[in-house]
C-alpha cells in the first residue's frame, strides 16, 4: 500500500554489485564509528575513574578521534549512497516519517565533532578545564543519540507494516509532520544496544592495535595495563553483544524471520555472527602479557571479520524483512558500464594513493619534528 513504483531508470549496476558496496561500505564505516560511539564514552569513564595508565590510554584513543571521525563520516557516505539506489522505496518513506530527528543528526554531529575537538585541544595542551571536559561528555551523549536515531530509521525502514499508523499519528492533511519514531517496534531497543556492545569490542580491538603498532614510546607497564584493559573491555562487549543479540533474536524478532535465521543455510551465518567475536577475544586473552605487531594485526583483521559477518547478517535479515513488501533483487537493471569501470579504477588508484600517504606518514612519524 505504501510502496511506490520502480524507478524508471532501473539499477545502474547489478543488484549484487550495489549490495556488495553497501555491505563493504557499512563494514568500513563501522570501524571508525564504533570508536566514537562506544570508544569515546568508555575512555571518558576511564579517565574519570582510573589512574595514570587509564588516563594515558584514554588520551591516546581520544587524541585519534578527529581523524577517525572525519574518516568515519566519509566512509558512511558509501552505504548511504547504495542504500538509496537499491532500497529507495523503503529508505525515503522511513526517514521522512521521522524527518525532524533524522534532520537533527546534522546538528548533533556538528556539536559532537566540535565537542571532540575542544576536548582534544584541551588534552593536548594539558588544560582540561571544566568546559573542555564537559564538551567531551556532550559529544559522547550526542553520538549515543545519533546512534538511537539511526537504529530508529533503519528499523523503521523494514517495519513497513507500521508506516500507516505512524503516519496517521504524525500528519497534517496527509503530509508527514516528521515527528514519528519507531519506539513501538520491539526490535528497536535491542538493535540499538546490540550495536553499542559490538562497538565496545571494536574499541577494545583498537586498543590492541594501537598498543602493538603505535605505542612504541610507552612504558612496558602501560602496554601490559592497556592489553589487560582491552581484554576487560572486549569481554564486557561480548557479554553485552550476546545479551542484546539474544534479546533481539529470541525476544523481539518476528517469528518468521527468527525461523529463517535459525534454519539452514542462514543458520551457519547466524552461528558465525554469534561466535565470531570469540576469535579476537581469544587472541586478546592469550596476548595479555605482550603483543607483537603480527598479533595486533591479526586481532584487527579478526575484528574486521566480526564486523563484516555482522554486516552480511544484517543485510540478509533486512532483505527478509522487506520481502513481503518489495523484492529489491528483482528491479530492472540498466548497467552504466563506463562510469562503473571508471569508479572501480579510481577506487583502486585512490586506495594506492592513500597507502602511499600512510607510508609517508609512518616514515615521517619515525623522524623527530623539524621544529
Amino acid at each position: 500500500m505504501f510502496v511506490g513504483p520502480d524507478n524508471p531508470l532501473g539499477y545502474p549496476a547489478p543488484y549484487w554489485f550495489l549490495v556488495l558496496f553497501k555491505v563493504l561500505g557499512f563494514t568500513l564505516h563501522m570501524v571508525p564509528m564504533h570508536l566514537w560511539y562506544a570508544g569515546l564514552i568508555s575512555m571518558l569513564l576511564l579517565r574519570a575513574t582510573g589512574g595514570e595508565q587509564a588516563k594515558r590510554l584514554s588520551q591516546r584513543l581520544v587524541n585519534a578521534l578527529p581523524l577517525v571521525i572525519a574518516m568515519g563520516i566519509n566512509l558512511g557516505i558509501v552505504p548511504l549512497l547504495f542504500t538509496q539506489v537499491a532500497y529507495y522505496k523503503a529508505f525515503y518513506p522511513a526517514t521522512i516519517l521521522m524527518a525532524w530527528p533524522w534532520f537533527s543528526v546534522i546538528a548533533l554531529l556538528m556539536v559532537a565533532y566540535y565537542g571532540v575537538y575542544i576536548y582534544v585541544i584541551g588534552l593536548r595542551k594539558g588544560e582540561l578545564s571544566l568546559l573542555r571536559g564537559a564538551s567531551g561528555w556532550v559529544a559522547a551523549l550526542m553520538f549515543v543519540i545519533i546512534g538511537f536515531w539511526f537504529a530508529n530509521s533503519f528499523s523503521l525502514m523494514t517495519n513497513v507494516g507500521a508506516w500507516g499508523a505512524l503516519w496517521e499519528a504524525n500528519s497534517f492533511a496527509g503530509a508527514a509532520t516528521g515527528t514519528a519514531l519507531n519506539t513501538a517496534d520491539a526490535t528497536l531497543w535491542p538493535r540499538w544496544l546490540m550495536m553499542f556492545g559490538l562497538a565496545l569490542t571494536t574499541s577494545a580491538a583498537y586498543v590492541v592495535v594501537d598498543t602493538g603498532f603505535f605505542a612504541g614510546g610507552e612504558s612496558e607497564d602501560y602496554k601490559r595495563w592497556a592489553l589487560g584493559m582491552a581484554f576487560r573491555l572486549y569481554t564486557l562487549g561480548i557479554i553485552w553483544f550476546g545479551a542484546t543479540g539474544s534479546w533481539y533474536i529470541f525476544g523481539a524478532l518476528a517469528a518468521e524471520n527468527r525461523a529463517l535465521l535459525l534454519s539452514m543455510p542462514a543458520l551457519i551465518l547466524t552461528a558465525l555472527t554469534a561466535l565470531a567475536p570469540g576469535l579476537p577475544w581469544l587472541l586478546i586473552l592469550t596476548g595479555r602479557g605482550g603483543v607483537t605487531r603480527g598479533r595486533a594485526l591479526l586481532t584487527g583483521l579478526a575484528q574486521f571479520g566480526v564486523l563484516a559477518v555482522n554486516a552480511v547478517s544484517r543485510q540478509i535479515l533486512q532483505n527478509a524483512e522487506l520481502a513481503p513488501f518489495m523484492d529489491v533483487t528483482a528491479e530492472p537493471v540498466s548497467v552504466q558500464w563506463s562510469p562503473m569501470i571508471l569508479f572501480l579504477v579510481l577506487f583502486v588508484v585512490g586506495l594506492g594513493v592513500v597507502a602511499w600517504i600512510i607510508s609517508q606518514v609512518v616514515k615521517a612519524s619515525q623522524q623527530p619534528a623539524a621544529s
Partner: protein
Amino acid sequence: MHYPWWYVPFLTSPMLIAAVAVIHVYVSMYAVGGGLFLAVETQYAHRSGNRDYLSYLKSHAWFFILLTVVFGAITGVGIWWTIGLASPLATEMLIHAFVFGWAIEYVFFVLEIAAAFAFYYFWDRLEPTVHQIIGWIYGISAWISLVLITAITGFMLNSGAWPENPTFWVGFFNPQFLPQTIARTGGALLLASLYVYLHAALSRGDKDPELLKLISRRSTRPGLLGAILITVGGAWWFVALPSSAQAALMVASALNIFMVLIFSVTVVVFAMLYLGPYRNPGWITPGFAILLFAFGLAAVGTGEFVREAVRKPYIVNRVVYSNQILPEELATLRESGYLEGGTWTHAYVSEHYPQVVDGAGQIDEAALLDLPEADRLEVGAVLYQYHCNDCHAVEDGYTPVGQLTRGWTPEMVRLLVENPEKAHFFMPPFAGTPEEAELLTEYLLSISKPFPVDLLTTADAE
C-alpha cells in the same frame, strides 16, 4: 506523491535544502580554493625558504581543517540528508542517474581527508617535496570533487539531451557543466582569498607587518583570478540557461535584483582586492577583511540562491517537476487522478474515505464531490500539501497561497488551479482531474485572505 510529503510549517521543507546548501557552499568552496592556495603557497614558501610564511601557512592549515573537515563535511552530508527528506523523487532520480559520479566523488573525499590530515599533522616531519606533493593531492582532489558535483548541479538546471538519451555521460556533460565549473572554480578561489585575509587579519594583527603584507600580496592573486572566472562563467551560465530559466530571471523581481547584486558585488570585490591588498598590502585590517568577506559571502550566497530558484517549474530540468512529479506521469494523473496516482494520497483517501473507493481499489473521482463540505476541504488540503507545498506555505510563511490569493473570486482561483503554468510559466501544470481541481479550488478559497480593506473602492463595497 511517490513518498510521504514532509510538511514544514511557514518555511516549506525544500527551503531547508536552500538553507543548508548555501551554508555548505560557503565552506565547501573554501575547501577547494583554500586547498589549492595552500598547495601553491606551501610550494612557494618551501622554495623561497621563508620559515615565517611557512609557519603562518601551518596555522592557516589548522584553521582550514577545523572549518572544512568538520563544518564543510557535515553540512555536505547535511545536503544529502535534506534532499532525501524534502525532495525524495528528485534525489531518487539523480542517484539512479549519477550514482557512480557520487561514488567517484567519495573516492576523492577520502583522498582529501587522508591528505589534509597528513599535510597538517606531519607538517614539520615530512620531506618538503613529499609535503608539497601531499598538498597538491589535497588541492587536486578537492577541485575534482567540485567538478563532479558541479556536473550534477548543472544537470539539474539544464539536462540537455539527457531526457531523449538518458546515459551517464550525456547527463554529465550537460550545457551548464563548463560554465558552472568555471564560475564555481572562480568562487572557490575568491573565497579562499577572503578567508585568508580574514584569518590573517584576525590572527596576525600587527604582530609582523611585513609578513602580513606578504600574505596579502600572495593571496590577492587567486581572488582577482576568481572574480574574473566568476564573471566569465556567470555570463556563459546565463547564455547556457534553458529559455524558461532565462525568462524566470527576467520576470521575478527578486531574482532580477539578485542578479544585479551578484555582478555588482563581484565588481566591487574585484576593485577592493586590486586597490586594497594587491596595490596596498598594508591595508589589511580586521575591519577591511570582514567587509571583504561579507561581500564575498553575499556574492556566492546570492549566486547559489539564484541557481536554485531559476530551475522552476522543474527541480531537475525536464526530469522532475518541482512538485515531485515526473513529466511522463502527467497525462495519466490528469486522466485517473492525482489522488489515485500518488502512493500516499491514494492510501490517505482509502483510509479516510473508503466510500469513494470502488471494489477494485480505485478512487471514484466523481464521488469525491459528494463528500460533506468539511471532508471536501480536507481532501483539498491533502491535494495542496502534495501538489503545492513544495513551493508555497499555506496561510503564512514562504510565498503562502492564502496571502497570494487575497480577495480572489472562485472563478479566478479555479482558472489558476486548472492552468497554473499559463498564469505563471514557472509553475508546473496541474496534474489532476477536474473534480480534483474543484476540491483544490474550494480549499484555496477557504484559506484565502480578504482583499486589503484600504484598497477597496466604492464599487467593491457596493
